[in-house]
């Protein structure tokens, strides 16, 4: 696999006065060109901090403690964690090689500059072009993301646009310098379902046109099902499972992934039956469980193992990887990976089966 970006054992901690928050605690994954990676997790799982770490935009009191983020570009390989956040190289990567779409487009645009001037700023920073040329490119970008009357919209302010148009303008800004990787952090969370469908379709079209990689951060498994090629599931700063999107939806291995998939209502459900739930709630960051971080909520918790030791991410057959003692090779170097049949789990849990396929 030709990885464009490789994240290896990334740890990003925050050090406020009250203690240490391990926002990202050993995340490992890779993204290839032309591919969409869905990063799923609930609040506090570290998915946004992972994205900010990749852009080297972690704010104090946080910092990248260890790990590497390798960006394989035409120039060679760069370890982003070794760059100073304000260095020339880092600034030439941000925007030009890695674009970023934030969740809330209203607070990401400056309220006192026009949409056009903000797009042109990105173009002028990374390219040696005239203002006239930059403006022409800006109009072209707005047109490409489907904004009607693009010429006219260039001179409007963010507050004059609707939520959907604003998110389109945000995407246009992120695409201004044709990045190799687009990081989209909950790009459709604040939008209506119909607008959401339009924005996701737009991202897919743009990807087909220029072959960029997309890292899609979301809490919504529906967005993942719609968009992703590969999926990384995070819980409290760690990757608990990763694999191809069909494998994750058809044969999720980690009890957390299984429970998440079971707990969402779907349109085809029998109405007013009980939804399967995940007991408990997400632990407070200062109150992290010992051992496997999911063990207090896990239906397959094994006393003396899960609350004591930390499971490692183990690769199973077919490239799916999972961090759970149900799949850990037992003994010294026994069955190095639990090939083929995994222990049949999920059947003991009440509720619905995972998928109907």
């Amino acid at each position: 696999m030709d990885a464009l970006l490789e994240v290896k054992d990334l740890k990003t901690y925050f050090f406020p006065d009250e203690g240490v928050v391990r926002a990202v605690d050993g995340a490992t994954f890779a993204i290839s060109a032309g591919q969409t990676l869905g990063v799923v997790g609930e609040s506090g799982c570290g998915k946004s901090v992972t994205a900010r770490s990749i852009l080297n935009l972690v704010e104090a009191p946080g910092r990248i403690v260890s790990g590497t983020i390798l960006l394989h570009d035409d120039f060679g390989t760069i370890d982003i964690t070794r760059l100073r956040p304000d260095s020339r190289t880092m600034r030439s990567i941000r925007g030009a090689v890695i674009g970023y779409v934030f969740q809330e487009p209203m607070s990401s645009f400056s309220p006192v500059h026009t949409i056009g001037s903000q797009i042109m700023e990105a173009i002028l920073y990374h390219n040696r072009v005239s203002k006239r040329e930059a403006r022409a490119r800006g109009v072209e970008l707005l047109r490409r993301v489907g904004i009607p009357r693009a010429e006219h919209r260039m001179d409007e302010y963010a507050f004059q646009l609707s939520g959907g148009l604003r998110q389109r303008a945000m995407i246009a800004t992120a695409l201004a310098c044709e990045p190799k990787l687009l990081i989209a952090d909950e790009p459709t969370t604040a939008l209506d379902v119909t607008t959401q469908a339009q924005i996701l379709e737009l991202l897919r079209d743009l990807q087909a046109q220029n072959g960029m990689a997309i890292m899609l951060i979301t809490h919504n498994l529906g967005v993942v099902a719609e968009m992703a090629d590969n999926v990384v599931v995070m819980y409290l700063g760690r990757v608990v499972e990763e694999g191809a999107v069909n494998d994750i939806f058809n044969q999720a291995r980690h009890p957390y992934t299984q429970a998440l998939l079971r707990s969402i209502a779907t349109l085809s459900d029998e109405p007013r039956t009980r939804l399967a739930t995940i007991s408990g709630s997400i632990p407070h960051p200062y109150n992290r469980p010992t051992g496997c971080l999911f063990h207090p909520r896990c239906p397959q918790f094994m006393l003396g193992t899960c609350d004591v030791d930390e499971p490692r991410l183990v690769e199973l057959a077919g490239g799916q990887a999972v961090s759970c003692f149900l799949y850990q090779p037992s003994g010294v170097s026994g069955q190095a990976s639990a090939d083929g049949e995994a222990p049949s789990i999920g059947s003991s849990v009440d509720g619905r089966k995972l998928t109907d396929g």
Partner: protein
Amino acid sequence: MAENSPILDVRGLKKFFPIRRGFLRTLVGHIRAVDDVSFDVRSGETLALVGESGCGKTTTAKVVLGLEAPTSGTLRFEGADLQTLDAAGRRRYRRSVQAVFQDPFASLNPRMRVGAIITEPLVVHEQLGRGQVREHGLRLLDLVGLPERSIDLFPHEFSGGQRQRIAIARALALEPKLIVLDEPVSALDVSIRAQILNLLRDLQARLGLAYLFITHDLAAVAYMSHTVAVMYLGKLVEFGPARAVATEPQHPYTRALFAAALPSHPDERREDVPLAGEVPSPLAPPPGCRFHTRCSAVMERCSREEPPLVHTDGRLVACHLYSPTPGAGPWQPQRAALGSLTSPSFTTGGNP
């Protein structure tokens, strides 16, 4: 209480907001937020209001909660017209209709203890001794599945899901008959949503509550509701049993809306975007059918005539594809028609 008696009956509800401009605040027009909407909610049942932002679902809820006065139309609660109620009757109405809002981080006062939050409606509406109030508070906490010790804690000591339980306990304090649920799970984490939806469903079964459920989560609609009302630009476009509307939508807008819902499995990915463009401004809604500017099945007639709500396939639909008589007048609410619609034979799944 009768099984399927309509507890709230809304007929021809309109709510216009005046737009004033300039120094003299001259009236330049109206935003027709809700324009001639009729529905009823029955005890033990859930009516879902769905539609894109700006469709008028929140305004409808505000009118039901008594936070906005309707421009015209009638609201009947247990048969009594709200406009003719005296002060005592209005007080009784406000007790019977409660609300749970989207964001439990904003809807709970951070300076009040949980006990004070959930019993505040009791203190306002009833003369009770301290001991009685506390006892009541503990019972409410038990009802929503929170431990007894929560009563002396502050909201910040709870997670999002637990806070939403507190908000539900507060809504239940006065033993209401109807609860308006305004996006009750949208602000919660995915793993918590199912807990809250199950809780709401259990409470409905135990207490015979009626819910007016406002959401844009279409899967939750299909799961939670008995009846669905789909709104577009202040108009009702489709109204019928939840299962039928969700699985076989008839109005082109409902079809597009449900087609836009995200798949639950990668095999169900869709190829095309179901609906292009954006909702037009409610200040100047399109003439004729308000949806005709975005409709895939638009006909010449749609831009001239407003389609009436007609009976099709066990539900009401406002679309010229289904209206047999050209030039028919606007739909008049008919008790008989609606009664047959929401009769038990249409409620799929049945009450648990």
